[in-house]
């Protein structure tokens, strides 16, 4: 290990190696890598600069290791893709060569350069040089850091008791880990429990689900918490503290589920499980196979409000005396090492598509309502009945992509609807072969194993597939049948068909309350609103937050098979962590220099993690590094530079700013991006090849809260034309709410600029989520006018920024 020497090293002992990656043509196609290498070689402390085709390849990594040893490199800079992708790779290489991994720095010349400036090779090359200059400048000031190792609690939390949650819980429990399976509904089972048959095998959904449900129900390692909500998630990978609100059922475990109470109950309401097609009582069980089978009282419906028992019919009816209106909500505190989010999806509500007349015409039903109708255990005992006259329709039409692939609903494809319809069509044919069935579609997507066969079968059975969705549906007053009009886009002709019943094949959409879990678990969401994985290819079940994994429709619409697959994957990922028993956490935390602290408590006020406490008697504060998550907003707030943010020190950031503004400052935008959202957003712009001007220089901080006013002032003082501060949307901050400080600081800066008679447009603040590459790109475009309008006087004036006042 070279750590000790490095720490005591004089700057002139610095030996930096720079590696410029071609990434095939991804970078080299736009950026002149040789030029960049040549340039890098001229930079201070750089003892060698090389380029290679794929730095991330084994050879590339071997080369770096070799050089570290042979050339006694004590800092390494790789200019290639986003650190969010390969920083871990290169850090590992450095470590293997005995170099502390925190002495490695990256320049993102792909997502932030070559991909977004495809057609401006020179400018892109210049930018690449700048980015390398910035990286080297920071590298020169990097310090070795030691990571703390934290133990991992051998318990897991699974949020959501659908098939995904059940599978994940069972896998973990069978592996031997204690699992808390939290479900907000009275029973586990989720959507799959509502479905009649599954495609492509056509086997009975509940028949294959029920055994899993009861397994989960009685597994010694699984603690089932139904009718429960997640209230709070604190802590970090391996050591989460979770608060769960267990709402009372008002029925004790001794319930034998005989149902006498429900029979006695005088009040009724539509049963959510049957989508209102059947009634339930105030005391009920959502469906026959529910787990737990214990009944539950819906106190909103029940006549007994607050603490007066006016009605005791159920109490009297219950032989085993299991009904207890005195039950109170409990808040459970769980310590878990890993969390699997399997919160599932909602179905699209087609009522908003007025042209389809759902809720206007009773004989227009949704595909989920269909599942209940066709289900033998359902409200119509398996008879596909027309709500208006309770008879079996002779003709039905399925309409695909309802709420999917359209501006009217959601833009994405809901993945399951095509096959679901094909399955449903076959079911109808099976029961009532004479039924005329029309399926109106955009494309039939039968991509999965055995799907195409099923599709063929449907065609063979005489199901009519018509390309082109109806533009409108109206009801025949007499027959209560329905008229469908639209264009058959294959035959290029208008159709006007009359059927007795219409089934809207509705899509899936993110849970309306996704934001809650998102906030609690620090998750990100894609533009579709589903939870975002850490990496779309390589870490598809990991959430960006360590120790948290995704499974099922919470991540994206998927069928049962995929949900189960992903659930097992998530369980496996979680098991890996827990099997290791410990995890090392990044050393990116703040550190207090007590000598400089005056005990003003500014930092105490802003720390989102209560990691800083005041010690009045000493006129100092105390900083608990273990509790620190590393946003750095304290350091940004401290007026006395008493708090150092490891790996993102003032000096390092100043160095990057200076490097960024070394040449043509007055044409440049210095952009501060937070690691989780806005930097990722900029990456996303790159991945999507969104083109924007080349004059932006991105400096990465963990959180926008780290961006101290002095950084912005420094940039202006250095003559930068404009400064962009960006972070996660308010509420999405990965450090709870540190970005609220960002907002305050920028507003203060704007006031100051006004006082100094500066054009405050030169400082911009934008919230960019990891999915909003477009937003980032257009912001840069938008700022160009400001940049081109700054004249030398303006620049001169702004040098005053650093002066007090």
């Amino acid at each position, binding site marked *: 290990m070279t750590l000790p020497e490095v720490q005591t090293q004089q700057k002139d002992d610095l030996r930096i190696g720079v590696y410029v990656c071609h990434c095939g043509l991804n970078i080299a196609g736009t950026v002149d890598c040789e030029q960049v290498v040549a340039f890098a070689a001229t930079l201070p402390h750089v003892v060698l600069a090389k380029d290679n085709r794929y730095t991330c390849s084994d050879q590339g990594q071997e080369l770096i290791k070799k050089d570290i040893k042979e050339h006694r490199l004590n800092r390494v800079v790789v200019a290639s893709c986003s650190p969010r992708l390969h920083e871990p790779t290169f850090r590992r290489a450095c470590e293997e060569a005995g170099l502390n991994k925190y002495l490695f720095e990256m320049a993102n010349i792909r997502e932030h350069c070559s991909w977004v400036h495809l057609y401006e090779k020179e400018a892109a090359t210049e930018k690449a040089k700048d980015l390398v200059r910035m990286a080297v400048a920071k590298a020169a000031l990097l310090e070795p850091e030691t990571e703390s190792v934290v133990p991992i609690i051998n318990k897991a939390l699974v949020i959501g008791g659908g098939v995904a949650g059940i599978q994940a819980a069972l896998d973990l429990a069978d592996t031997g880990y204690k699992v808390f399976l939290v479900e907000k509904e009275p029973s586990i089972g989720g959507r799959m429990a509502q479905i009649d048959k599954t495609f492509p095998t056509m086997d009975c959904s509940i028949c294959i689900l029920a055994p899993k449900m009861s397994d989960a129900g009685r597994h010694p390692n699984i603690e089932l918490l139904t009718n429960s909500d997640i209230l709070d998630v604190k802590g970090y990978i391996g050591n989460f503290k979770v608060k769960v609100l267990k709402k009372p059922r008002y029925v004790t475990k001794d319930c034998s589920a005989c149902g006498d109470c429900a029979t006695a109950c005088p009040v009724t309401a539509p049963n959510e499980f049957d989508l209102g097609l059947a009634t339930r009582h105030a005391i009920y069980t959502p469906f026959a196979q529910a787990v737990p089978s214990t009944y539950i009282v819906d106190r909103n419906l029940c006549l007994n409000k*607050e*603490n*007066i*028992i*006016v009605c*005791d019919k159920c*109490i009297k009816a219950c032989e085993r005396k299991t009904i207890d209106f*005195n039950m109170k909500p409990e808040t459970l505190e769980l310590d878990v090492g890993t969390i699997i989010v399997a919160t599932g999806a909602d179905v699209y509500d087609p009522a908003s598509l007025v042209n389809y007349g759902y809720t206007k015409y009773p004989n227009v039903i949704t595909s989920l309502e269909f599942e209940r109708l066709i289900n033998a255990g359902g409200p119509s005992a398996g008879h596909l009945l027309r709500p208006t006259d309770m008879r079996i329709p002779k003709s039905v039409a399925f309409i695909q992509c309802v709420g999917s692939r359209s501006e009217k609903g959601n833009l994405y494809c809901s993945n399951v609807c095509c096959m679901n319809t094909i399955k449903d069509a076959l079911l109808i044919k099976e029961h009532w072969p004479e039924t005329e069935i029309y399926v109106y579609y955009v494309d039939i997507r039968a991509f999965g194993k055995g799907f195409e066969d099923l599709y063929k079968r449907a065609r063979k059975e005489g199901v009519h597939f018509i390309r082109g969705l109806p533009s409108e549906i109206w009801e025949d007053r007499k027959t209560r049948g329905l008229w469908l009009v639209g264009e058959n886009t294959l035959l290029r002709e208008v159709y006007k068909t009359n059927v007795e019943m219409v089934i809207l094949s509705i899509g899936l959409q993110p849970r309306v309350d996704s934001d809650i879990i998102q906030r609690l678990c620090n998750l990100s969401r894609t533009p579709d609103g589903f939870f975002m994985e850490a990496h779309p290819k390589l870490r598809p079940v990991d959430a960006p937050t360590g120790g948290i994994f995704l499974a099922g429709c919470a991540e994206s619409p998927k069928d049962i098979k995929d949900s189960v697959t992903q659930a097992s994957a998530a369980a496996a990922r979680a098991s890996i962590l827990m099997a290791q028993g410990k995890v090392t956490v990044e050393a990116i935390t703040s550190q207090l220099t007590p000598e400089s602290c005056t005990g003003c408590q500014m930092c105490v006020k802003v720390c989102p993690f209560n990691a800083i406490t005041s010690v009045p008697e000493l006129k100092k504060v105390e900083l608990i590094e273990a509790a620190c998550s590393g946003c750095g907003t304290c350091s940004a707030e401290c007026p006395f530079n008493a708090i150092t943010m490891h790996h993102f020190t003032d000096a390092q950031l100043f160095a990057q700013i200076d490097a960024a503004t070394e040449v043509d400052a007055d044409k440049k935008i210095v952009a501060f991006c937070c690691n989780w959202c806005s930097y990722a957003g900029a990456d996303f712009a790159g991945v999507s090849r969104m083109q924007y001007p080349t004059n932006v220089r991105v400096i990465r901080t963990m959180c926008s809260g780290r961006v101290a006013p002095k950084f912005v002032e420094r940039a202006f003082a250095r003559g930068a034309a404009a400064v962009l501060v960006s972070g996660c949307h308010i509420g999405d901050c990965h450090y709870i709410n540190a970005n609220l400080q960002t907002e305050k600081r920028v507003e203060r800066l704007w006031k100051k600029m006004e006082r100094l008679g500066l054009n405050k447009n030169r400082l911009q603040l934008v919230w960019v989520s990891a999915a909003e590459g477009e937003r980032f790109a257009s912001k840069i475009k938008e700022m160009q006018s400001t940049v081109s309008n700054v004249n030398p006087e303006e620049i001169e004036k702004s040098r005053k920024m650093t002066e007090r006042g």
Partner: protein
Amino acid sequence: MEESGHPYEKFLRKDRIPHIWCEGCGNGIILNCFARALDELNMDLNKVVVVSGIGCIGRVSGYTNTDSFHTTHGRPIAFATGVKLANPELKVVVISGDGDLFAIGGNHFIHAARRNLDIQVVCANNFIYGMTGGQYGPTTPLDTWTTTTPYGNIEQAFNLVHLAAACGSVYVARWTTLQTRWLTESIKKALQKEGFSFIEVVSQCPEIFGRYNKMETAIKMMQWFKEASVVEHFSDPAKAEITPHRIVTGEFVDIEKPSYGRLLKEMKTRIAEKK
């Protein structure tokens, strides 16, 4: 009086209804719950004896369509002792007030409980002496106003459930008159239990206690019960407080213990066998 067809008519002395109690008086509800309990257990009314003492609730024995006796002030339990021991077949229920059972009759209560005499005692606790116009009594809360505490009550009140538990009752519960369902269940439970059972019914006297303590209407007193009462089954009776903000209700004791009657019977058989 008219044939009302009311389901509980058969438990009442029709010619005595309507009763003498004031508008909204809790006593009527207690009688109602008692009737319901008898109905639901369909007890043999020929074997039920209701004994009461003096005070508003004392009149209750005059309304139940059972054998009944209206004793002197404070003595219903002593009287009931004689009845029960003389004819163990009878279900002897004492329904009386807080003053009757715990002031003048306190001694009888603690001893009957100690003996675990096989009777059920239901106490209507309205916090005052109602019949005599609202004087303070053994359960009047501190700082409340009555005709004999014109400057506020400076005496500590009895915690009846704590007292009953301490004296060895096998079943102890407290309910407000708004908790009719629970109260009825409790009475049923008590009626089926061997030994001395005690149920305190926090009852409303809107006419006097209410007027004196800013609850002028019957509804207002019920609102107090609604807002203040909490059910805490088997919590420590010592902590079962009754304050303007909190009335701790629930079942506090439910244990098995041989009753006086059983031990007496066993003793007699022992003697008989000896010969």
